[in-house]
């Protein structure tokens, strides 16, 4: 370490003065490896977060573990693993990947290039239920990451790989470019700063252009935009589509997935990974890859190697009616002022106008509320950046949490304490853009530990997506229905989703068991009526295909059943 521990702690105490705290309220200790651990309590969660960030910026501090509490803070949750250990061994694998978001699925697919037994565990009943789901799908160009950070390197590299990824995996990807807009000279310095960052980070084609030129490219941009940072390499994909594509290709190449399978403990012996204890039983393995998103710090704690804390940063997204298609193609944002800039208006590859996300530090990882403040922030920003869009055409809004560490950088490395344990944590923005490069880096970490891993000669990187009825020509539709009449039955009228597509999702490589899982695979229920019409039909199909009672069908896993019980007149075991 460059600074000695006493100096770091002194600097921390100095920094703490700004927060108007009793010195006994917060205590800090530091390890040899520069990991600063905070304990105590603060009056507000935002103060706890600010202290964490202050600490992470001190010279010599590598990362921050914060056990600071504040009203609403939820401490690390550990389930008693004993009953699950008692279930015994239920499976085994060489590599267990924890977390079925875009990162975990990308890693799973990457490792199927080798002859290893890969098992991905996801605690929810479908993939892409956490941070990935509530991502705006932007494949960032890489101007906003701090030069020399892991984020900067992996973002620019990941972005460059997206075209190939989309070709191989068959997901929609639009490389439309992005603007960061300046409205007056007061924004000049921030935008020039981003430009310099971008040049240093190697962002291709980056330039500052006039407002008029920006409007030539994007006529929907507000007339009050005076100049803009333009990065042509930025693009957009649908995160749930990408995640599923990766997972399906991984399945094709031999990886296995267990859904509804929560990890409750990591088994280690003599500093080596031995396996995991899950809510489905014990699974021995040699390597654990921690891609648990918001819960990565809790998984690290289970392995006895927690050296970062995840503090959830909530972001809300707003979706508009498809009638706005074509009004905006390119993302636009405003000059940033904090750890995250939040997002602005964009059009998803599906042709949906999407605004957001907002950015708010919240104490609870499970807090996925959308508040009036989120809406006001998003709509105000969007209206400022664009013109000709009626905010009354909003059809839905939702939120999710970014998995931020206090160092605000990705943590992708071998555990220094436990052999066979790989941290893939702090994957927040631009994690989606970086995913291809994150997967490569994890591959190299794995091979570093297991240099003799044999190549999977049967690896096929190509996944051919099934046709979406809504995108087909009339001739293609005619042919599809001739082959399978279920293509002629439109279940979701707003998004033109057919019964055949829903059955395909239910019986797919990662079978859809919930209403939301069907929605992510087919778009049924994503449209303007928000499943008002098709909800009962999708529910009926799920019950029929899974041979369960309709009252067992859930929105998003156990506890989210749509129906409570049969009515008293049906004769079906009423309460």
């Amino acid at each position, binding site marked *: 370490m460059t600074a000695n521990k006493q100096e770091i702690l002194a600097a921390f105490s100095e920094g703490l003065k700004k927060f108007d705290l009793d010195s006994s309220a917060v205590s800090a200790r530091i390890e040899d490896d520069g990991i600063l651990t905070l304990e105590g309590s603060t009056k507000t969660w935002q103060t706890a977060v600010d202290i964490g960030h202050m600490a992470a910026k001190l010279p010599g501090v590598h990362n921050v573990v914060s056990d600071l509490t504040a009203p609403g803070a939820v401490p690390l949750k550990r389930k008693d693993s004993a009953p699950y250990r008692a279930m015994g061994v239920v499976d085994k694998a060489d590599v267990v990947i924890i977390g079925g978001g875009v990162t975990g699925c990308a890693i799973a697919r990457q490792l199927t290039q080798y002859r290893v037994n890969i098992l991905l565990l996801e605690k929810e009943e479908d993939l892409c239920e956490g941070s990935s789901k509530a991502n705006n799908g932007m494949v960032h160009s890489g101007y906003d990451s701090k030069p020399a950070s892991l984020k900067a390197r992996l973002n620019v590299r990941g972005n460059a790989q997206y075209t190939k990824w989309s070709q191989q995996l068959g997901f929609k990807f639009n490389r439309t470019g992005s603007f960061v807009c300046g409205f007056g000279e007061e924004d000049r310095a921030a935008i020039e700063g981003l430009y310099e960052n971008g040049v240093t980070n190697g962002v291709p084609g980056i330039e500052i252009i006039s407002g008029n030129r920006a409007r030539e490219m994007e006529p929907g941009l507000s007339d009050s935009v005076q100049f803009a940072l333009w990065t042509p390499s930025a693009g957009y994909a649908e995160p749930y589509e990408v995640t599923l594509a990766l997972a399906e290709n991984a399945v094709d190449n031999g990886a296995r997935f267990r859904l509804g399978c929560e990890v409750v403990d990591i088994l280690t012996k003599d500093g080596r990974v031995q396996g995991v204890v899950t809510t489905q039983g014990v699974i021995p393995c040699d390597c654990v890859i921690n891609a648990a998103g918001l819960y990565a710090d809790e998984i690290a704690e289970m392995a006895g190697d927690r050296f970062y804390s995840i503090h959830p940063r909530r972001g809300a997204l707003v979706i508009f009616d498809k009638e706005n298609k074509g009004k905006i193609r390119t993302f636009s944002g405003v000059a940033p002022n904090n750890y995250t800039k939040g997002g602005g208006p964009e059009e998803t590859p599906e042709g949906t106008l999407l605004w957001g996300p907002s950015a708010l530090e919240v104490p609870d990882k499970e807090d996925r509320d959308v508040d009036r403040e989120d809406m006001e922030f998003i709509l105000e920003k969007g209206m400022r950046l664009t013109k000709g869009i009626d905010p009354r055409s909003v059809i839905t809004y939702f939120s999710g949490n970014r998995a931020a560490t206090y160092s605000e950088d990705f943590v992708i490395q071998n555990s220094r304490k436990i052999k066979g344990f790989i941290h893939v944590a702090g994957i927040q923005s631009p994690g989606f853009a970086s995913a291809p490069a994150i997967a490569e880096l994890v591959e190299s970490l794995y091979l570093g530990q297991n240099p003799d891993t044999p190549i999977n000669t049967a690896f096929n990187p190509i996944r051919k997506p099934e046709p979406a009825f809504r995108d087909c020509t009339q001739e293609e539709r005619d042919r599809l229905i001739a082959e399978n*009449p279920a293509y002629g039955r439109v279940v979701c009228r707003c998004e033109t989703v057919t019964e055949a597509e829903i059955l395909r999702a239910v019986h797919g490589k990662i079978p859809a068991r919930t209403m939301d899982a069907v929605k992510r695979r087919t778009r049924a229920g994503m449209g303007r*009526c928000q499943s008002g019409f098709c909800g009962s039909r999708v529910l009926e199909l799920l019950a029929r295909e899974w041979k369960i009672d309709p009252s067992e069908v859930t929105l998003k896993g156990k506890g989210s059943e749509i129906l409570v019980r049969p009515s008293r007149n049906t004769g079906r075991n009423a309460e």
Partner: protein
Amino acid sequence: MNTLSYDIAVIGGGPAGLAAAVKARELGMDRILLVERDYELGGILQQCIHDGFGLLRFKKQLSGCQYAQKFIDLVAEGGIDVLCDTMVLELTDDRRIYAVSAQEGLLEIRAQAVILAMGCRERTRSQVSIMGSRPAGVLTAGSVQRYINMEGYLPGKKAVILGSGDIGLIMARRMTLEGIEVEGVYEVMSSLGGLRRNKVQCLDDYGISLHLSTTVTKIHGNKRVEAVTVALVGSDGKPVRETERVIPCDLLVLSVGLIPENELSRKAGVQLHPVTRGPVVDDTMMTSIPGVFAAGNVVAVFDLVDYVSRSGEIAAQGAVDFIRRQSARGNMVDTVAGSNVGFVLPQRVNADCGGKEINLYLRVRKPMKDVRAEIVCNGKILKSTRYGVANPPEMIALRFVPDGPLDGPLTVDVR
């Protein structure tokens, strides 16, 4: 792709489409097609097992299903071609219809006249800006109705209803009868959203409380609804924070308004009206595209099914006349929503309509007592009708027969 050819194609087999098809047959049309996306005809009436339908037309209290069945029988007797389980994907401005079904595959349907009768859909939580989480247990009143009445399942144990529209009121009673506890009905406006008779029969008779000027501001619970926050709204229409209270429940039922389903119309280039959100129509229910007519809730949300059927019949008459004469329309005059009137349907009438009955439908802007509805043309009162009360949810239907050509716009005032 199969190509079919008809005189009249009706899109939608609910009350408007059924009435239109039956009327067209009565008027002697041979080749009529009724296209319905659901498995059976009847539209939303299928799930309306409560009574009160058909008071005007049949002078009887029928259930929605019974009301629909009367027309479905006439469709069958008339030998009208019906395609159920068939979804129209596209309508062109030259009256070609593209539809799909599992049995028929892709269809191209050509018709001399098309009647749009797609009905409406329910507004969702985002359209009334309810904040909070997105758990299971937030359903529109129509969905709840479908689950309980058609699927035979209860979607909750304790419900809060937002919106005092008719379906919300009717579901308050229905859920109570099925053993779901209805905590109350909350209405953001200062007056009832649905018909008075429904408040009496569905809330008062069951002791369910109605909370006016109150709305749901937030939903709690990640997997399933655990509670909702309600608050009084101030005179600016915004919730007052200090009045917020949390009500534990596992079901939030939304009855917050209906929106005409005009995606097909819009794509075909039919002119839509900003207030009704349905096509601008003339007194024959013809839209801005010649030969394309519209009827029922796709034009504007009606409060009585009798009016819906009537509009279907007018559209059928218009379509038949259009086919038979193919003549240019005469001079048209606009109808104007005058004082205290929200909108008037149709938006245009034929000026040379002397001796022919004209049906006008309107909604008042605010609740009023002892009023007169007056139809005025060029300073002359053509018709004047007294009403003891006039409420926005209760549509006023005016029929009159002008004795000569109209020499200017028709203004309707309620004062």
